[in-house]
């Protein structure tokens, strides 16, 4: 039998799987309301209304969990669902009376209903030790630990504005920019296993990939290997994927860093990158209590101090970084001051000071 050649069908047509009310009102929605946390109600130009119930998932789901969600959709929500970019699942119903039973059922089955409006929604999520070849931590574990602690903030809408958090299990950062980002930060140069370099690494590639040109070819014990200028090395880990013997991950020295103020939406200010606020945090499975404490503390202060519609970044812009560090009691260090040559843009070139 000749091999089966793929049908290059590409991205499938979504309409075949879309809730019929969504398909019918496609491009003709008028406004929305949030009758309660976790529930949206969209009204179409046609007068049609659709209620969406949003619930959290663990993203990496076993088939039983998925089938359970399908059962719920079949019984309570016309048999359709969609997923959000943050791995929340959404059930659409056209009959308002179905909302409460659906919410109750999801809650009973352990799927928290929430994540809408000014809540802390699901943390976006990368692979970690479960699957990636270069992770410094386990994204799924960090997220599970944090979401357990933030459950109340997920199922309520008590924040000043949406909180979009992210995780990344290495400095490549597959997780996105976040209001708060919890990311691996290496603090020591890679340790080289010189025996393996010759066989496993494309040496010119890895030399070229180092952003600060800290790697040079070298003969070690008579074998062709690599050498790292530890003074130059910024511990970014870029050398590790193309050259696994350049071990950057370290149980002790791969730390967690926390960044705040990333904002991808264009609402108010232009999109902004998140900024370093805390580092040197132990990478401490299975519950990462030190990282969780800092995140919760930042959220608490934000919740107390920010005004309606201020994202974390907007809030800090208003109150200023000095006050952010004061309120959160996080230490400010020389590492917060950017030091590359173009960093001038991050300096305060004004008499704008808050007291």
């Amino acid at each position, binding site marked *: 039998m000749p*091999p089966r050649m*793929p049908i290059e069908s590409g991205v499938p047509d979504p309409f075949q799987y879309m809730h019929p009310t969504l398909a019918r009102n496609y491009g003709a929605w008028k406004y929305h309301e949030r009758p309660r946390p976790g529930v949206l109600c969209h009204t179409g130009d046609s007068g049609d209304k659709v209620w969406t119930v949003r619930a959290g998932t663990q993203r990496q789901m076993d088939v039983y969990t998925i089938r359970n969600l399908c059962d719920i959709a079949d019984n309570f929500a016309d048999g359709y669902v969609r997923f959000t*970019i943050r791995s929340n699942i959404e059930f659409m119903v056209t009959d308002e009376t179905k909302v409460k039973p659906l919410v109750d059922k999801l809650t009973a089955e352990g799927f928290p209903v929430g994540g809408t409006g000014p809540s802390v929604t699901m943390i976006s999520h990368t692979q970690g030790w479960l699957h990636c070849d270069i992770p410094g931590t386990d994204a799924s574990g960090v997220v599970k630990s944090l979401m357990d602690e933030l459950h109340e903030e997920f199922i309520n809408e008590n924040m000043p504005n949406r909180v979009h958090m992210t995780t990344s299990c290495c400095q490549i*950062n597959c997780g996105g920019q976040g209001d708060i980002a919890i990311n691996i930060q290496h603090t020591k140069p890679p340790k080289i296993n010189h025996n393996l370099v010759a066989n496993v690494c494309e040496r010119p590639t890895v030399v070229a990939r180092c952003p600060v040109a800290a790697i040079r070819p070298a003969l070690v014990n008579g074998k062709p290997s690599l050498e790292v200028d530890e003074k130059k090395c910024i511990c*970014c880990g870029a050398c590790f994927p193309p050259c*696994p013997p350049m071990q950057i991950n370290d*149980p002790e020295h791969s730390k967690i860093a926390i960044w705040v103020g990333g904002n991808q939406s264009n609402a108010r200010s232009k999109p902004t990158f998140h900024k370093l606020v805390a580092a040197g945090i132990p990478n401490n499975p299975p519950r990462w209590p030190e990282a969780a404490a800092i995140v919760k503390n930042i959220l608490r202060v934000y919740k107390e101090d920010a005004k309606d519609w201020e994202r974390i970044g907007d809030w800090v812009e208003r109150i200023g970084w000095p006050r952010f560090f004061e309120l959160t009691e996080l230490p400010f260090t020389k590492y917060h001051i950017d030091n590359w040559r173009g960093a001038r843009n991050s300096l305060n070139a004004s008499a704008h000071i808050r007291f």
Partner: protein
Amino acid sequence: MGKPMHNTPMLDQLESGPWPSFVTGIKRLATDEGKPYQGMMVDLLGQLEHSYETKKGYWKGGTVGVIGYGGGVIPRFSEVAKNYPESKEFHTLRIMPPPGMHYDTKLLRDFCDVWERHGSGLIALHGQSGDIMLQGTTTDNIQPCFDELNEMGFDMGGAGPAVRTGMSCVGAARCEQSCANEQKVLRMLVNTYIDDMHRPALPYKFKFKVSGCPNDCMNSITRADMAVIGTWRDDMKVDQTEVKAFVAEKGRKYVIDSVVSRCPTNALSLNDDDSLEVDNKSCVRCMHCINVMTKALSPGDDKGVTILMGGKRTLKIGDLMGTVIVPFMKLDTEDDYEKLNEIAGNTIDFFAENALEHERTGEMIERIGLVNFIEGIGIEVDPNMISQPRQSSYVRMDDWDEEAQKWQDRKAA
């Protein structure tokens, strides 16, 4: 009786707490008597616990694929297979979902069934690039599994130096802010350049993301090589009755402080009679006031899209934002879509020819300068591309007159 479980005291701690637990899910699979994946999942848990204990990962890459395609599978071979032999191969298949990630339950059940037969039973919905990630199978199972999914109408997503799986927001399907037909844009772009997805030959990855409005729920500006974002060109729609109702409900002070003062370009003014004045020429379509007063305000009727290019995350020179390449284009007719397609095609071609190995579009633009890039893809300069003109006089401008003439000619045309 199935394979006995390893001791997993650390992972066990992740079973408690109100958030759904991936550990509980994996354990369910690991104790799923008689299922092909049971042993694999037992050892997976073992290896994962080992990672938790030692704070290190134990997967390495390799080469695994399906016939006809050069990418889409993320191969994983265990470095500790001696202790955890049944999960020694644990590859992931990336499958492209319907745009907007809409499913009926039949479809989801079908996915489960296929993956129960050929894989681990563990599915991530979805990966950060938007793929359905079928996580964990052996080299042998890849091909039959993909064949079944492909027969169901699904196709492999991107991996490696290739066009990648794209994402679009729920948009027109369920959002009053939508200014674009997100799913159509996404399908057209990815499907036109599907060859560059399935046979990776670009310098590095290339991502499309589509958001229906500047709220950018797909994070396209920071995470896509080519971001397409819906917007509008005429005046926003203001329902003054709803404005007054909003002011009445919230109070003048609240409206001034939460809406008027927060407009990034001072384009709003509250009139003494509680109606709202909008300076549409200064409005930058940031969406803030529309978000806050969604019943009273909405995007205009003359809709289209803005295109930005060059967004990406950290590796090599730090995170880069996408920047405006096409400030506005209509997407009404098939010709309009064709034009969009061409812009994407020119960009991919230019990228293929001019980027260094492992260099993203954003890094390339940074290296060669925006002007060389847009000239290369056949786009003309526009002041919307910049937040401000140059501040340094250190530039050679011998042929200013010619360049000025070009602009005059364009304006006259």
